[in-house]
């Protein structure tokens, strides 16, 4: 967990190269088609926003990019190479990190154990857990973001919704992510904490070597933060635009048109 924000840029990475591309992704759960031929791509130094109604398939798309779900069909490219992500560990080894919508926190474990879950620091000679170092680095990372978490040894169950979200974000960001996937990272946050996380996301973009995909429900905020946005409806991308070339009104109009059509049918 080196401090990603503000760290130096690795020489082999240049801004603007394609980081991840998904082509014609289909995902079915039994009889439900959650995704029906979705294609997206993001470049390094770019933030892609994903908008869409509840149940549209946004989280499913993200979970395919993290290796949590395997697509029914479709192709994935990471840093230009075609891959088939076999597991979450495989995706992580390619620098893909995610803040899941449910935050993927373990309530019964401490803050620092959650931050290092499945990438624990260990000590020679027996490879036992290095609790002290994990505690120290976890509180450093949280201090760095500026979201107050009283004690990294506290059980996560005792924290507020916003604090829990901050921990999930800090865990993904401070893990050397190259491709950062954020599923509604601001959902439970107060204005100040959301501001801190937005600052953090903008610092990451400024570095130029990290590609970010962010799901959100607040259209104005999304257009403000993201370079491009896509709109997902019923498992398909129905609209795609640079943020500067669209507006909250246009997006709302598309969603309302859809809603009226569905009501008439």
């Amino acid at each position, binding site marked *: 967990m080196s401090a990603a924000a503000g760290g130096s840029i690795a020489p082999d990475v240049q801004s603007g190269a394609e980081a991840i591309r998904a082509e014609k992704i289909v995902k079915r759960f039994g009889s439900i088609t959650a995704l029906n031929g979705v294609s997206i791509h993001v470049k390094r130094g770019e933030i892609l926003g994903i908008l869409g109604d509840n149940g549209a398939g946004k989280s499913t798309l993200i979970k395919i990019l993290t290796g949590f779900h395997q697509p029914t069909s479709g192709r994935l490219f990471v840093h230009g190479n075609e891959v088939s992500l076999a597991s979450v560990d495989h995706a992580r080894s390619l620098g893909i990190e*995610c803040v899941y919508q*449910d935050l993927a926190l*373990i*309530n*019964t474990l401490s803050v620092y154990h959650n931050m290092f879950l499945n990438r624990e620091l260990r000590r020679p000679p027996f490879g036992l857990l290095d609790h002290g170092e994990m505690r120290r680095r976890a509180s450093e990372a949280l201090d760095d973001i500026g979201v107050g978490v009283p004690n990294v040894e506290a059980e996560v169950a005792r924290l507020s919704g916003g604090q829990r979200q901050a921990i999930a974000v800090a865990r993904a960001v401070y893990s050397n992510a190259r491709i950062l996937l954020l599923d509604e990272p601001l959902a439970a946050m107060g204005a100040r904490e959301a501001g801190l996380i937005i600052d953090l996301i903008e610092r990451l973009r400024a570095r130029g070597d990290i590609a970010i995909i962010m799901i959100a429900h607040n259209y104005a905020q999304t257009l403000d933060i993201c370079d491009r946005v896509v709109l997902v409806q019923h498992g398909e991308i129905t609209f795609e635009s640079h943020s500067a070339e669209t507006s909250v009104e246009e997006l709302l109009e598309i969603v309302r048109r859809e809603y009226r059509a569905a009501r008439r049918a």
Partner: protein
Amino acid sequence: MAPPASVRRSGVRHALGGFLVWREASVILVAVLLVVYFELTNGNFLTGDNIVTVSQFVAAPAIIACGEIMLLICKEIDLSAGQTFALAPFLVYFGAKFGLPVIPAIVVALGICAAIGLAIGLITVLLGVPSFVTTLGTYFLITGVTLTISRGFPATPPGGSFLAGIMGAYGYSEIIWALVIVALMHIVLRHTRWGLHTSAVGGNEIAAAEAGINVRRIKVGNFIITAVLAGFTGIIEAYRVGSNDPLAGGSTIMFLGVASGVIGGTALTGGSGTIIGGLIGAIVLGVLQDGFTLQGINAFLFDGIIGAAILIAMIANIRLARWQRGVSR
């Protein structure tokens, strides 16, 4: 870089104020009070001979508890651990009878126990059968196997007196095995990735999977650990008694193990528990069993009293634990 002040302070707080927030403190208190009570009422509780007896009551449930605690933490249970306990010494016996030296026979027997754990684990995670049901099945299945291969008769465990002594016949050897296993399993639970991932799986299975933890592997592994520990306990118990009993163990030893864990603070809802707590829980139960025996309680009443004592100890522990944590759930 020097650790931030907050970390240093919390380290000191840990060392000093530890006992009050220590999860096991309330159970230790119960154990000490029971010892004092039995010593005051009987006067012969704290004698050398009786301490050996108590240690023998404690050892087997303490080792079984180590496995069951790992399973309870990741939201599983092995109801057939007591059956594996009864089967294992016969596996050693037949291994030796078929010409294996005793120690390889023990190793082979434990290997078969591991295979039993593997089978239970695979049925549970691959076919989605709750382990409560899987192990209810293996409970009867293993009993049938043990009764069939033993033809229902006891047998004498193989090997000379030196080996028998190390394995369990010498008064303190069983409790020494138990303490060594408890220490190892404590390290596994608290200081290895395996232990942390076991807690994570029990705390939130989906989140653990999202973090990339192989949930099935963790569960299957803990079924194997439990079966091997149960088999090993059965073997040392057979050497202590000097006889393999096809009807030994069973649900009694298994539930004593589970009860030790729960008295020691392991949550039946998964996610949390401690191995040391399980040892102390086993001590509480051992002291109760031995103490009531010394008082000459009617054998028919005995189980009833043990049952009531388990309930009281558990309720006391749960209340105290909540009070310590300041949680009013």
